[in-house]
């Protein structure tokens, strides 16, 4: 079963985060790529949130404690390595979740898109991990910072841990990166609405226009 609020919020927040690279990406090609990934996730977020209620109200009128996204996706974009590692870790989970729910319409459609996300993030992970000393250092730093947040994903989906770990492990090994043991999960803080301050910042930007001009249209 896919929890539409939890996964919808994951997709919405990660989409908003990726959009933050627009006008700031390392190259024009990369900017288009990241914007496309953001659009894929926004589409999935809209379909999932619409199952719960009005998508605009859910996106624009909830406060941070009412969001059910995992803490991993709200971690800052940081540098390009942090964005790539976060994308690898999360979309590898989302891929397994969608693949395990082929009867779900969003999952059946989304699994092809997310397979591409996982592949894309994996290719960059390997290039950054095996690139220069600097890119390796940054990648290892990003992995170390993000790795503890992955445990939350598998509290509610324990069956997905083994296939996720196998895939992520292969990519990281090829990249020459070693995450070490996964620390034990400390419950599901994000899913319970106990967020880091990063989410407040993300939502402040995402919701400002709608809150200032309720119901505004293009």
């Amino acid at each position: 079963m896919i929890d539409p609020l939890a996964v919808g919020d994951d997709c919405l927040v990660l989409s908003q985060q990726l959009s933050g690279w627009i006008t700031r990406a390392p190259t024009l090609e990369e900017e288009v790529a990241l914007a496309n990934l953001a659009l894929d996730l926004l589409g999935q977020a809209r379909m999932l949130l619409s199952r719960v209620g009005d998508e605009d109200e859910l996106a624009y009128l909830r406060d941070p404690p009412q969001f059910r996204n995992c803490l991993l996706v709200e971690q800052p974009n940081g540098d390009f390595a942090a964005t790539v590692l976060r994308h690898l870790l999360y979309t590898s989970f989302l891929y397994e979740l969608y693949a395990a729910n082929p009867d779900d319409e969003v999952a059946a459609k989304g699994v092809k898109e997310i397979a591409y996300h996982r592949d894309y993030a994996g290719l960059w992970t390997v290039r950054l991990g095996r690139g220069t000393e600097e890119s390796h250092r940054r990648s290892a730093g990003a992995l170390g910072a993000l790795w503890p947040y992955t445990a939350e994903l598998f509290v509610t989906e324990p069956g997905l841990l083994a296939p996720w770990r196998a895939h992520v492990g292969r990519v990281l090994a090829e990249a020459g990166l070693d995450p070490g043991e996964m620390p034990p999960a400390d419950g599901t803080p994000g899913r319970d609405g106990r967020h880091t301050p990063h989410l407040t910042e993300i939502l402040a930007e995402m919701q400002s226009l709608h809150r200032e001009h309720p119901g505004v249209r293009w």
Partner: protein
Amino acid sequence: MTLWEVFVRPRRGLAHTHAGSLHAPDAEMALRHARDLFTRRQEGVSIWVVPAEQITASSPDEKDPFFAPADKPYRHPTFYEVPEGVPHL
């Protein structure tokens, strides 16, 4: 970063045609950028990427010897009936 030329095959049965160019660190990333830049709306079934420096192009100076004596209509295969069911001949 390397400049890559992108060729897209729009449909089965058609040849790859030049779609544009892009920058990428290597061939695999070039393929993925090409997918995002040129086939996002299902324009293609196959993509080639070629390092731009690998392409040998005719130069404008060679225009005459290369192309000038081409006004010989009998070289055009216009005297055949195109068989039905061969839309891309």
